[in-house]
């Protein structure tokens, strides 16, 4: 290593990999990963979130899992929670939908209303 710049570049790179362990106040993406969720395909949804978020270097977004919230027929369910605790619930997710939620909701702050629980109830 020949300069401080090289050190800092390495720091940024490793930091992204360690983000999971740091406290942060950004968005939280919670994927339902109980038996019902997994059976309905929650795993690829979760992986898509993790990969897309890493690809776009969204360092303030944390992906976590949760258990069954009781709406098994709407699984895979994903909730996006902002720092103030406001929640958007997406239902019947798949990998493509997950990628779109990342691009529109997480990056641009625009809720993908057609995937939300509200849209599902109204249909």
């Amino acid at each position, binding site marked *: *290593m*020949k*300069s*401080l710049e*090289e*050190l*800092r570049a*390495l*720091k940024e*790179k*490793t*930091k*992204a*990999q*360690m983000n*999971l*362990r740091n*406290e942060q106040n950004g968005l939280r993406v919670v*994927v*339902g*990963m*109980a*038996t019902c969720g*997994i059976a309905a395909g929650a795993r690829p949804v*979760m*992986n898509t979130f*993790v*990969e897309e978020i*890493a690809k776009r270097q969204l360092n303030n977004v*944390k*992906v*976590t*899992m*949760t*258990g069954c919230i009781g709406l098994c027929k709407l699984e895979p369910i994903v909730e996006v929670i902002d720092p103030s605790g406001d929640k958007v619930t997406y239902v019947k997710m798949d990998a493509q939908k997950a990628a779109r939620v990342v691009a529109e909701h997480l990056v641009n702050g625009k809720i993908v209303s057609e995937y939300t629980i509200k849209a599902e109830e109204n249909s």
Partner: protein
Amino acid sequence: MQIYRAHVLVCAGTGCTSSGSTVLFEEFEKQLKDAGIENEVKMVKTGCFGLCAEGPIVVVYPEGAMYCRVTKEDVAEIVSEHLVKGRIVNRLLEGAGEVQKEEAAAEQSHFFKKQMRIALRNCGHINPENIDEYIAEDGYEALGKVITEMTPEQVIDVMLKSGLRGRGGAGFPTGRKWDFARKSPSDKKYVCCNADEGDPGAFMDRSVLEGDPHVVLEAMAIAGYAIGSDQGYIYVRAEYPIAVKRLQIAIEQARAYGLLGKNILGTDFSFDIELRLGAGAFVCGEETALMTSIEGHRGEPRPRPPFPAVKGLFQKPTILNNVETYANVPRIILNGADWFAGIGSERSKGTKVFAVGGKIKNTGLVEIPMGTTLREVVYDIGGGIPNGKKFKAAQTGGPSGGCIPASLIDTPIEYDTLIEIGSMMGSGGLIVMDEDTCMVDIAKFFLTFTVEESCGKCPPCRIGTKRMLDILTKITKGQGTLSDIDDLYALADAIKSSALCGLGQTAPNPVLSTLRYFKDEYIAHVVDKKCPAGVCKDLMRYTIVADKCKGCSLCARNCPVNCIQGEIKKPFVIDQDKCIKCGTCMDKCKFGAIVKE
């Protein structure tokens, strides 16, 4: 770049390794593989979390759930419930049972709430064998800042203004030490690190070395730049194999990255570090003896002055700081002197790490801001005394320190207040004692340690401490007289004023401080021939109360030395000459007929 959705941190410090964390790590890898999620979950071996009593500790991120006393059998459940399904395994959380899911994060528990982590900030958070993770947490940024933007004088100025004092025990201002060494003219200077942690019950430095070895390397390089040195030595105990191994790995990694060696980060500054292993002599933790040992001689102290800052290692100006002192340095450089000076109390700045042990629930490692009271450490962080016993005293400073009695439990923990009450900060061992502890016995314990570890060079320490121990032994055997107590004072005075090094000069402290606060216990041993705590075996006897004894012979059948005789259905009698005072008879008696006095 591999992306993981969860990180599993398994403590690989000495405490958790001895309670079986290595097996857990392998079991996790196996279970993750079986579950087919080994590419989603990252396994990390990390340093001490501080809650050694509850080890082995496993922390799972992003939730930050802290699992305690994890066994090999629990691993499958953590993997299938938490990592596959996202359900935290509540029964394994710290203080299991009462904890709600929101409180699963380690930072929220009582143990951590009142703590403030500066020296231990990376311990239990990063992988100590991976320099990249240290760099990601601002590692080597302070060194970079110092050698590219600051003059050595500015570095020393920051250290002076921060108010950082030596964490090894004596509390000498670090900035002033560096300043003396900087101003000593010489062609060669040395930076040394004292990692010869030897106080009974102390393991702060070990945990820093095991959990965050790079912080010590970085700080030593900063010190080297400040005083004008290009060579550092870490003197570490050979009894710390994990710490030694991680230091070796860290030094190699830092060299490979060019963060140690010639022309660091493309500047003119060069600095390298070598390890020297101590062979287990307590006296080698004393600075002059430590340097003599690095030079390859028998580890014995020499008189000061000249001080090491003028004539130290190989007769060259040298600074020697303790591991924990160094662990504070990079943070002070990055956050500024004012930040550090704003933490703690008026005359003691920053935080102090304590290894809390003895009669306390949460045995482990705590880092608190200076000025925190002993009560907060014992009850809020330490969880209080087990089995409903009463707090009697706490011992700080190891064999050089003294005790703090229950009446002074609200004393703020600072360098000066502790000295005022006859104890000292010391390197950070904090041993909690309850009502069953005999203070004469404690004084004897520490003095036995000093007598065994005295290097023998100067007579006051070699002969004086032995004489004091003889008197204490006499007292605990019930053969003491009141004049013995006067002799203890006289010997203590003589040793304090005439011993060659700090270890000898402070050796009488455990006796003096117990005499100061618990003189009545000494009197009880000497005059009444009684040990109030029931510890000194020669001063107590087990007897059978004839009225209560039913003559069942249970005691006699369990006595290991067959010293209880009697006829069935008539009171039994203990032969005091043969009794070894093991207490078995008292435990076995169903009628409460046996008493200890």
